[in-house]
C-alpha cells in the first residue's frame, strides 16, 4: 500500500525532503514504518532519539502500535508549544 510521510521541523532536514511516498505491506504498524525510515536515513534515527516525535495519522495522534492504512498520511511533529 502507498503511504505519504510528512516530516516537520527539524526532522525533514535529516532527509532533505518535506514529504515522501513509501510503498509498504498491508498490516504495517507505525513502529514498523519508523524502523524502516531510521534504517534508510540514519540521522533521522538520531533525531527521533533526541526528540521523540508526536505522530499524527491524518488528524489523529497515534502510537507505534497503530496500523497504517492505504493512502494514509503520517506526520512526524516535534512536540513544542512555547512562543
Amino acid at each position: 500500500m502507498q503511504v505519504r510521510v510528512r516530516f516537520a521541523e527539524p526532522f525533514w532536514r535529516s532527509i532533505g525532503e518535506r514529504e515522501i511516498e513509501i510503498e509498504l505491506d498491508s498490516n504495517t504498524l507505525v513502529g514498523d514504518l519508523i524502523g524502516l525510515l531510521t534504517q534508510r536515513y540514519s540521522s533521522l534515527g538520531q533525531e527521533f532519539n533526541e526528540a521523540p516525535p508526536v505522530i499524527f495519522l491524518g488528524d489523529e495522534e497515534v502510537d507505534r502500535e497503530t496500523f497504517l492504512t492505504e493512502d494514509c498520511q503520517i506526520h512526524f511533529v516535534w512536540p513544542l508549544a512555547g512562543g
Partner: protein
Amino acid sequence: MEFKSTVAIINLTTGESQITNTPTELLHAYLGGRGLNMAYLRHYLLIAGDPKEIDPLSPENPLIFGAGTLTGTIAPNAARFNISAKSPESGILGDSNCGGFFAAAMRKAGFDRLVILGRADHPSYILLEDGEIIILLAENMWGTKVIKAQDLLKEKHGPGTISAVIGPAGENLVRMAAVMTGKKNAAGRGGMGAVMGSKNLKAVVARGGAPISIAQKDTLRAVRLQQQKYLKDSKIVQVLGKVGTPLLYEVSNRLGAIRTHNSQKNFFEDTLNAEEIEHYVDKMLACTSCIVHCRHRNTLGGEGPEYSTIGLLGANLGIAPTDQVIELNNQVNDLGLDASSTGTIIGWAMELYQRGIITAEDIGNPIEWGDFETVHELIDDIAYRRGFGDVLAESTQAASQFPPVARDYLIAVKNLPQSDPHDVRYFKGFALGIAVASRGADHLRNRPTLEVFKLPEDVREKIYGRANDPNPEGYKDKGLIVAWSDDIYAVTDSLGICKFVTHGFNSPHLLGYDHFSDLISAATGFDISPEALRRLGARVIDTERLINADFGLTRTDDTLPKRYFDDPMPARKTKGHKIDRGKFQIMLDEYYYERGWDQDGQVSLESSQEIDHLISLLGA
C-alpha cells in the same frame, strides 16, 4: 566587590535627576529586572495616589526601566530588561520584557534602573553616558518611525549608541504601542510605548561607560563555558538557532491549535511554516551574550517574524502569503506597535464585521479575512489614529465604542489581548496560565510548555516536586505546574536571562535554579541558594498580585475569553475541546493553594507584610 544596583530617578517635568543605590536588603530580595521593577512600581504608584485613579497616560504614572542582574555580563543569554508602568492598554500592571543590546548598554553607561517621572514640556530624549544623565530635545526626530529614529540617534551620538525608542504609535498614544530597542526587539506588551509618548519621551539612549563590574571574572568565565556546552547540546537550542521560533507554527497548526480567524477556526495554511519563512531569511542574529541566535534578519528590510507574529498577523487575520505576513511584521515593528495586540485586535474587528456587529458604514471600509491591503492600511491608521484606526488604537478599550456583544468575541484576559497564537482550549494548563498571568493574557509569564512532552511520571515528579497528572487535556494538577512555571520565569526575568535557555520552557534540559545560583555568585559575589531563588520568584509573583489588588482586581478577573468556555474547537486533534467553567474554578482553587493565596486569590498576610517592609526601604 559589593553587590550594588544603581538607580536614577529622572523627573521630566523639572528636568532634575537623582542617582542612588537600591537598598541592599531590597536588592537581595528581588535582585533586578522584573522583580525589582515591581517593588519600585508599587512604591511610586502608591506615592502618586490611589493606583486605581491614576491615568496611565498622565505624568503621575511612573515608567521604570530595569536591567536584569546578569544583563550585559557573559552569563548565557543575559540581554534582557523590563519596562514597567500602569498599563494604558489594560489599566492594570504593565510590564514588558525585551532583548537586544540596549539593556547591556544602559548598564555600561552606569545605570541598572531608571525611574522616569513627570512629563517633558517638549519632545525629548534621555541620554545616558558615562554615569551622566542629559535630557535633550527630540524635536527633529518626533514623528519618525523606529528605524529612522534609531539611525538619527546613532548619527548624532556616534557608533556604539544604542537606543530604546518609540515610533508614531507611541507618540500618538496608541494603547498597544511598543518600545523598540532594534528593528524588531520590542518591549511590546501593555502599551509601554504610549506611556513614553505621554511623557513626551521619544527615546532613552545609552552609550559609553565601562565594562560591568564582575565579582569573580575567572569563575564566571568557567561557569559560562560549562553552561554554554550544556545548552549547545540541547536540541531546542540547536533548532532555534537554525530556524527561530517559526518552527512552532507547524506544530500548533498540525495539532489544530493555531488561532485562526479570531479563534473561530484552529488551523491554517502551510505557507507560514518555518521553511517558507526561511526563503526570506538573510541571516540569523543574536542578542547580547546569546548562544541561541534565534532572530532572523529578513530580506524585506526588517527582522523577524517570530511565531507569534506569523500566527497573529497571518492565520488570525486569514493572510496566507508568506511575503505579506513578513511585510506586516516589518510594518508594525517600524511603527512601534505590539504585533500580538495588533493582530488580536484587528482579528476581533474582522469578526465583528463578519457578524454585522459593525458595518462598512461604521468603519469606512469592509475588513474581510485575508485582505492584506486593507489590513496594511488599517495598521497605518491605527498608528496615526486615523478613521477606524483611531478606534482600534484604543485596543481592548475600543469595546466601549461597540455594541456590548462585541466583548464576547474579544480574545483577551484582564483587558490584555492574548500574546501568542496558541489556542489554549486543549492544553488546560495553558488556559490556566493565561487566566492568572499578572499582566493579562500572556504565555511568557507561566506557560507550562513541558505539558506537550507527556513526560514519564518520575521525571515530572522530579521537576515539579511531587507526582502529578501527565494528561495535558485534563484539569488535575495544573495549578501545581503553572505555579512552578510562574516562579522560575519570574526569576529569569529578574536576572535578565532569556526564556529560550530557561528550564521548563520548551525543554527540561536548560538552565535552572542551580545554574542561576552559580552565575549570580560569580557575577555579583552575592550567594543565594537555589531554594532561596525560587522563593524570590514567588515574592515577585506576590508583589505583582498586590499591585493588581491595588488596581481593584479580584478572583473574578482570573478568567478566560468567553469563546474559550463556550465554543468547542472545530477541527483536528483538538476538536471538541473547550474549557469547562466548573472545572476551571477548581483548577483556580488549586492554583491559589499552590501559591499560598486564599480562595479569593489574596496574598497571605505574612507575605504581604514582608513585601510592605521591603518596599518601605525605599522611603517616603
